[in-house]
């Protein structure tokens, strides 16, 4: 379990806005090994999303080196980055980012269609299976507007894992969800992590971070803290407990009424 999936060192990102320069990342070193479930915390504007976008090969750092799964990423062409995103990465956004007026199964199928290695034959079937894995086997033909926030995020997660990526990146995946649905989504990430996928989740909520195995804290473009969580909570257990409490409450209400 010690193979590094991610190795970055000295990564800087500077945005130039006219005269002024914004230092979004001021030199970040980070190593993530295979099978980790990592939470990235930090206040708003600290550089979490910038870091995630660079890790996700969506953005290019101003300086520093990045090796993803043994592949040197910095200096790659736009096309190679696109292929790398397709083959190795799954990305989950805060705002779901599903194609509107497009069914769930078509949304999930999308990454398979952009594959250039001819790995996938029955893309529609694979997409349906991925949706089943996130518990949406009965919602294949629903459009995003016909799904709840939690369900939409599940579709997005299915889309991220359908290509069997090495790394799953999620930028505030629970940011738009209520607390219960958030825990459900975290249970899904924990389950996927147990199946061997390396997961990195950005969040500014400590409640969410407690489900990770390791937490790093970003402040002002630098990693300030990096510690392992001694005993991570199980999101699945929390969901079960919430269910039990709700059942008790409902029973209580019925008793009072009787």
């Amino acid at each position, binding site marked *: 379990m010690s193979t590094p999936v991610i190795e970055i060192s000295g990564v800087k990102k500077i945005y130039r806005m006219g005269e002024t320069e914004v230092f979004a990342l001021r030199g970040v070193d980070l190593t993530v090994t295979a099978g980790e479930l990592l939470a990235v915390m930090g206040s708003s504007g600290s550089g979490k999303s910038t870091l995630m*976008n660079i890790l*996700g090969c*969506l*953005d290019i750092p101003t300086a520093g080196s990045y090796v993803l799964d043994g592949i040197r990423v910095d200096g790659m062409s*736009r*096309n190679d980055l*696109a*292929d790398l*995103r*397709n*083959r190795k990465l799954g*990305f989950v*956004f805060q705002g779901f*980012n*599903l*194609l*509107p*007026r*497009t069914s769930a199964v078509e949304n999930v199928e*999308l*990454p398979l*269609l*952009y*594959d250039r290695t001819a790995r996938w034959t029955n893309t529609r079937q694979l997409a349906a299976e991925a949706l089943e894995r996130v518990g949406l086997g009965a919602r294949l033909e629903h459009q995003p507007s016909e799904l709840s926030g939690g369900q939409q995020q599940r579709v997005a997660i299915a*889309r991220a894992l359908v*290509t069997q990526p090495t790394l799953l990146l999620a930028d505030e995946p629970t940011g738009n969800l209520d607390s219960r649905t958030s825990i459900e989504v975290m249970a899904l990430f924990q389950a996927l992590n147990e199946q061997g996928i390396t997961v990195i989740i950005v969040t500014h909520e400590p409640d969410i971070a407690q489900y990770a195995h390791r937490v790093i804290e970003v402040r002002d473009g630098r990693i300030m803290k990096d510690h392992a969580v001694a005993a991570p909570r199980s999101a699945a257990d929390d969901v079960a407990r919430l269910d039990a409490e709700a059942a008790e409450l409902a029973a209580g209400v019925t008793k009072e009424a009787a």
Partner: protein
Amino acid sequence: MKTKSLLTMAGGSILKNKMRTMLTMLGIVIGVGAVIVMVAVGNGAQTQIEAQIKNLGTNLIVITPGSTAAGGASQGAQTFNRLTIADADKIKSDATLLSAVSPVIVTRTQVITGKGNWRTEINGVSTDYLTIRDWNVTSGSLFSDDDVNAKRKVAVLGATIVKNLFPDTDPVGSQIQLGHVPFTVIGVLDAKGQTSSGVDQDDVVLVPYTTAQDRLSGMTFLGQILASAQSPNDMVAAQEEIRGIMRESHGLLGGGADDFTVRDQTAIAQAATSTTSVMTGLLAAIASISLVVGGIGIMNIMLVSVTERTREIGIRMAVGARGSDVLTQFLVESVVMSLLGGVVGLAIGFGGAAILGHVMGWSTSTPLIAVFVAVGFSAAVGVFFGFYPAKKAAALDPIQALRYE
């Protein structure tokens, strides 16, 4: 990306905006439709004129009495400037660029059979006449040189006369009277229909010019002389040659204006054809402007579409679409849209041409090549006007596209 998924994808996004797609396509529909109608009408006119030229005869040269020079009035014919058999004979013997020469004596009289009468035009001609006019006999034959020399009373009937006087029988061998003179029918002419000016070309009887002169008109003068040049290239030289012979024959070598006119009807008709073909081209060119306007419409909509779908482009790039994938997608969309418009325009163009032809009584015909050109052109419009927006989409930065509100 597979062609099939590209097409379903393009079809999907086109269908998601039905109204907009239809309005965008309308530009191309109108453009292609207009081009097809214009070409059909122009082409039809041209075919009609060409058919008429063919009816005129091969390399036809017409010599008529009187001058059409200054003033335009041809007083000569009424006085002393006339065409004679001698003129026709001299042209036939002296000219080197002509393949056939025939005098034409025109007179009108009654055709009388046992069943009825028919007033018609009698043309006294030589055996060259059919060659010159490019006419054929369907039954029997034309008279021979022997008949001409012997001034035999033989006649070849036009189809209209046969239809009216011999509705069910083959007239060859029957006896008829032209005026008071009995003639034997020896042939029937092919039906040719009307000329552009509405003259029935089949309402005619051909007889040897010698017989006509002797028995029917009593005139020694000719209405006209017809001649055929050996080839279309000889037309101008042949007319000059005829003019020289005629001037000599009429004693005009010392000077003086021509007292006859040599005309080339084919040239006039051919000028008409080329005028129509220029008109057709012009109409098609004007119509293709609307095709270009339609293309600009597509470009406009595609640009709006790229802006509107910036986030979609970002999503596609995030899951692994290359710039070229996005470019192809938008290009396919604009080409599918313009091709669809082209095909609908084609159908409307054909329908419109048919209706126009029916209502206005014009003959219309669309060459097959116009179909390919129209479809090819609308696809080219799609590529040309779709390229810039597609290029713009492909060049987007994934992160900025994803952040786009």
